[in-house]
């Protein structure tokens, strides 16, 4: 049983109110940081903890904070990215719904560390209930003197605002988020300059995921070194995984990084295996934009070692046989699911969400969607698979923001690992529209290549 750092008190009734949260040791990190530590010491603790960004890219948070430019007389901002819209990911929504004060506590500590006097939580527009919850929690914290002027008599001022987004996936990209926050069309900016130099209103800005900010609270409470003891290698601490798909117990789980993937999937403490006694066919390990893996490659790496839930182990094998931690949106597919249809569905999402600013993504996502639609509905050609791979290569890496990569990877990986299923959709087009391909050999043990 792993330790729960973020979700420890999740089952306490009324934990979403200030008083109950406080009685369970809440806001201790604010007191500790503001009264006993300097901002640089807080940054140092986060650096020591080895915390990596929980939004998808996995960039070390402490490092990101230390890159923040600190020119004299210029405001600095902390922006919390709560624009969680990746298909398969719902951990931030869960956290904000049940533990709003944890996020607010983290925001206060992080803003203090960065010297921000104004901070924003940019919440996706569709999450209106969560926006209300956060606004209520902020009002409570303010009434108790944890926000506003002269917090806890330390002389530190902080105003925290919740900003609803318009409901665009692209606004989860940090520079598009900043544009949207400034009231403009949410188009990603061309980097450099990075937000750490010129972000919100041209001022140095740090944009962090909800979970990264919440994780600052246990880091300060227990110390960065203690936090770093959890996890494995460079993947320290705990991570929220939002498990969905054909699982017996879908939901949000807090795991110690380094948990074996098989245990996470099959143990009753976590997902409890595949629902309805079916077999696992494929897994998307970290939200729709990471490469999809067949069951055998997900549970074992190409070297036949057990796959662990950690940044390194999931990425082992690169794009050929690995995937990514991503944002923790874990989707399991049982033997009845059609990979072609799923890939089409993802492509449709990226087509719909492309901002249309740069040409490869604008045109390429639509093209891929149309070809995949044709394949799924039995009008495909054998050459379509190569065409899709080629189009995805033309998009990948040639766009302003990572949405192009995110659109290209699921398509390219699905064709790499499930090519025979795609081909079956062409050769047996009439059958393919009536039934699914089934599990085929995707769960068979890997053939280990003997040197």
């Amino acid at each position, binding site marked *: 049983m792993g330790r729960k750092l973020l979700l420890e008190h999740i089952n306490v009734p009324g934990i979403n109110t200030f008083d109950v949260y406080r009685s369970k040791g809440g806001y201790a990190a604010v007191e500790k940081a503001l009264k006993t530590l300097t901002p640089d010491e807080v940054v140092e603790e986060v650096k020591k903890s080895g915390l990596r960004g929980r939004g998808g890219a996995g960039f070390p948070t402490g490092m990101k904070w230390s890159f923040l430019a600190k020119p004299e007389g210029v405001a600095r901002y902390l922006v919390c990215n709560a624009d969680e819209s990746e298909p398969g990911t719902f951990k931030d929504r869960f956290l904000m719904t049940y533990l709003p004060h944890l996020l607010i506590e983290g925001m206060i500590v992080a803003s203090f560390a960065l010297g921000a006097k104004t901070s924003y939580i940019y919440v996706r527009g569709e999450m209106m209930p969560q926006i209300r919850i956060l606004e209520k929690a902020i009002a409570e914290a303010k009434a108790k003197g944890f926000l506003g002027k002269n917090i806890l008599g330390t002389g530190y001022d902080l105003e925290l605002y919740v900003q609803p987004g318009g409901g665009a996936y692209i606004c989860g990209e940090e520079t598009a988020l900043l544009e949207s926050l400034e009231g403009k069309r949410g188009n990603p900016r061309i980097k450099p300059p990075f937000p750490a130099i010129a972000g919100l209103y041209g001022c140095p800005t740090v944009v962090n995921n909800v979970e990264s900010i919440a994780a600052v609270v246990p880091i300060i409470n227990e110390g960065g070194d203690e936090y770093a003891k959890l996890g494995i290698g460079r993947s320290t601490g705990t991570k929220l995984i939002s498990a969905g798909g054909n699982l017996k117990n879908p939901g949000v789980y807090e795991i110690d990084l380094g948990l074996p993937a098989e245990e996470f999937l099959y143990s009753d403490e976590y997902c409890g295996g595949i629902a309805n006694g079916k077999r696992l066919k494929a897994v998307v390990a970290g939200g729709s934009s990471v490469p999809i893996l067949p069951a055998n490659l997900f549970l074992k790496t190409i070297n036949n070692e057990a796959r662990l839930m950690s940044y390194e182990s999931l990425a082992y094998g690169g794009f050929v046989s690995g995937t990514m931690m991503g944002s923790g949106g874990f989707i399991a597919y049982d033997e009845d699911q059609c990979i072609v249809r799923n890939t089409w569905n993802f492509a449709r999402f990226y087509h719909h969400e*492309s901002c*249309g600013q740069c*040409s490869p993504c604008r*045109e390429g996502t639509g093209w891929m969607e149309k070809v995949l639609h044709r394949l799924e509905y039995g009008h495909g050609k054998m050459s379509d698979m190569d065409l899709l791979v080629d189009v995805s290569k033309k*998009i990948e890496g040639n766009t302003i923001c990572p949405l192009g990569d995110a659109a290209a990877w699921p398509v390219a990986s699905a064709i790499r690992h499930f090519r025979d299923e795609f081909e079956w959709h062409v050769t047996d087009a009439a059958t393919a529209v009536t039934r699914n391909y089934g599990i085929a050999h995707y769960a068979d043990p890997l053939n280990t290549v003997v040197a």
Partner: protein
Amino acid sequence: MKVTIDGFPIEVEAGTTILNAARLIGGDIVPPAMCYYSKLEGTGGKCRTCLVQVSKGSEKDPRPMPKLVASCRTTVMDGMEVKNITSPEVIEARKGVVEMLLINHPLDCPVCDQAGECHLQDLGYEHGAAKTRYEFDRRTFEKIDIGDKIQLHMTRCILCYRCVFVADQITDHRIHGILNRGDHSEISTYIQKAVDNDFSGNVIDVCPVGALTDKTFRFKNRVWFTKPVEAHRECENPKCCGKVTLWYKGEDVIRVTARKDEYGEAEEFICNTCRFDKKKTSDWIIEGPRKVSHKSVISSNHYDTLKPLPVVKTNPVLKEANKEQFERETRL
């Protein structure tokens, strides 16, 4: 700062972009640009045709950049080495971008007023493939009249955003922009409001394709049948330079545009009065014929290329057919 592009070294000032450094060198190594416009601030980075490979970051940090970069928005560093036409990756990526730009373009060049001076046409000719792999319906839009002088045909648009920057920076206030998202996004005014501003006509000049066209010139003539002549007038508008190119058909001025340089960019912007209302030779002080690059189809009929092509001279049948032209040459 010293930068090397495809093996050509050049000294440039700090803050220069790779694209502008390449333009200082000139020739084949200049990356094509569809959305960048040197006269407009903030343009570039969107079309991705100018992607280049940075094989050496700088003297201090010689690591290559992991991805191809947009040369129009990447500033040079001292000792940077850039590969454009010498990098197979760049050629491949550019081919991909051109293909993407063309898949939803109607390719209606035979009826398009921009044909002959269209950047997308040139780009497709130089970097594109002969056949398309796209087998679906292309995106179409209704034509919109934005004001009585400009027509917007969104179907042809490649969303370079140049016209938006013109409206932001050259005119007093912008009333058009991008609506919607992704491949159904479109340039539009808010509920078909008329773009009516002294400098709004410049959106026609900056449009790299035939999406924004001059209604006073629509379907009047093909550009390669017209003769460009440089002229100027004392314009009452203090912001207008009054320096233009007049496009003659016979004795008539059928179109007035700003003067465009070798990269198709207006040298200076002109006002709508000069562009739309002054269409008599007597309005202008004529300077002389406009030099048009011999690569352009516009130059095919006049000035420099009166001489029959070399291939004609060696073929007796063609020589006979071009008798009149040979006679004209000897007369001149």
